[in-house]
């Protein structure tokens, strides 16, 4: 049952699998994001309170979700690498960091632009916005720590530890809207029993969530290939792998 897990620790296996998966993941992402944007921007009815401005949710919510998911993935991959000494974990963590950071920036910027018409301000120091900003700083910290070491393996381990220390922030961001009085609205999509959105609004949003996830997976595959190559440059399997394939 665990063979799939063990295989994921093997660099040549991962190198091959990511090559095969990349185009499919990207295609799925394109389809889902395309439908989500067209349906959400063009066909979903305007919100009775926010009018057409609510459509920002179609990029804001998936980005914010990815920023949290990406950090958690980075922390878990690093933890697996630290505890079980599976070096692939470090490669995944290193690949995941810049992707997650970029979506954190999108979440903050789109949130800011959404806040201006809705709350009257581009920014507010409320718990969710502040902790999301802290998340961005944590990403930068991890991304700066890794290359600071002369020994790359040591840098990997230090970055993994730092990511773990910072992962405490993730539940704080998620629950901040419940624990504190916040300008930011509560959960929209997690209430599956009684969703607060009609299907015409909800379906494109779900499509965007899944589309962004597939996109994340695709980009992660590409970056992971680079990370694996950087760490396994002189291994015997590399020569054959990069000779037979051009990319």
């Amino acid at each position, binding site marked *: 049952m665990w063979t799939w897990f063990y295989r994921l620790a093997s660099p040549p296996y991962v190198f091959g699998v990511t090559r095969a998966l990349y185009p499919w993941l990207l295609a799925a992402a394109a389809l889902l994001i395309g439908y989500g944007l067209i349906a959400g921007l063009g066909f979903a009815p305007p919100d009775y309170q926010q009018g057409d401005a609510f459509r920002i949710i179609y990029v804001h919510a998936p980005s914010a979700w990815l920023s949290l998911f990406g950090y958690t993935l980075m922390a878990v991959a690093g933890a697996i690498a*630290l505890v079980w000494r599976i070096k692939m974990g470090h490669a995944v963590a290193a690949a995941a960091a810049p992707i997650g950071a970029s979506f954190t920036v999108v979440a903050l910027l789109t949130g800011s632009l959404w806040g201006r018409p809705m709350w009257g301000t581009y920014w507010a120091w409320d718990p969710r916005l*502040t*902790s999301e900003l*802290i998340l961005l*700083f*944590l990403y*930068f*910290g991890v991304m*700066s*720590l890794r290359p*600071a*070491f002369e020994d790359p393996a*040591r840098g990997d*381990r*230090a970055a993994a*530890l*730092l990511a*773990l*220390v*910072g992962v405490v*922030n993730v539940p*704080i961001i998620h629950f901040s809207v419940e624990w504190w009085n916040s300008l930011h609205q509560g959960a929209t999509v997690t209430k599956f029993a009684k969703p607060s959105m009609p299907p015409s609004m909800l379906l494109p949003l779900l499509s965007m969530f899944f589309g962004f996830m597939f996109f994340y997976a695709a980009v992660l595959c590409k970056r992971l290939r680079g990370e694996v190559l950087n760490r396994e440059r002189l291994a015997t399997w590399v020569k054959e792998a990069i000779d037979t394939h051009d990319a």
Partner: protein
Amino acid sequence: MSVGAWEAMGLILRRELRLSFRRPDQLLQPLVFFLIVTTLFPLGLSPELSLLRDMAPAVLWVAALLSSLLSVDSLFKGDADDGTLEQLALSGQSLGTIVIAKTLGHWLVSGAALVLMSPVVGTALGIPVAAFGTMMLSLALGTLTLSWLGAIGAGLTVGLRRGSVLLSLIVLPLAMPLLIFGASATDRAITGMSPAGALYFLAALCVFTSSLAPVAAAAALRITLE
């Protein structure tokens, strides 16, 4: 002759304090820095005490944060440079014991000193005497938490070129919740409201950090020393 963990902690703590007091200039520098930073704000903003009072908690806390970062940089550096750190690691005592002792030693000469200095600085910033109790308690809890966070950062960056900048980059985001609640507690005390909620939260943060930070800092040292 094997030394128990508590004994070892006491020995290392006493060593830390003795070494710190041997270099009084190094001891005083972060404290002077704290005083200077708090002076910058009235100079830059306004000498009106009534206006300063509003931002006094923030000024106090930011100055304490920066001063603490300055001094925590050398938490492990001296011992790492002359090989003492490796000797301690090989001594058979757990790295956790060593980290706890060194961090407590650091807090006693930096954070605790800041707490004692805070009434003077508080008066200069217009904080009413009635709020001093909350101010000092929040600073005590906060600087201790900062010392723990700094220990993690110091453990990760000891021996790195430009490690001090990285240390700040790593520790400051982690310290932001601390700043929010610490300043909030003092602020509420100044305006006459009950600071209990914020103080409880600070205490919770302190306990949480005190229990987990030694583990993290020890792991960081293990990575650095390998």
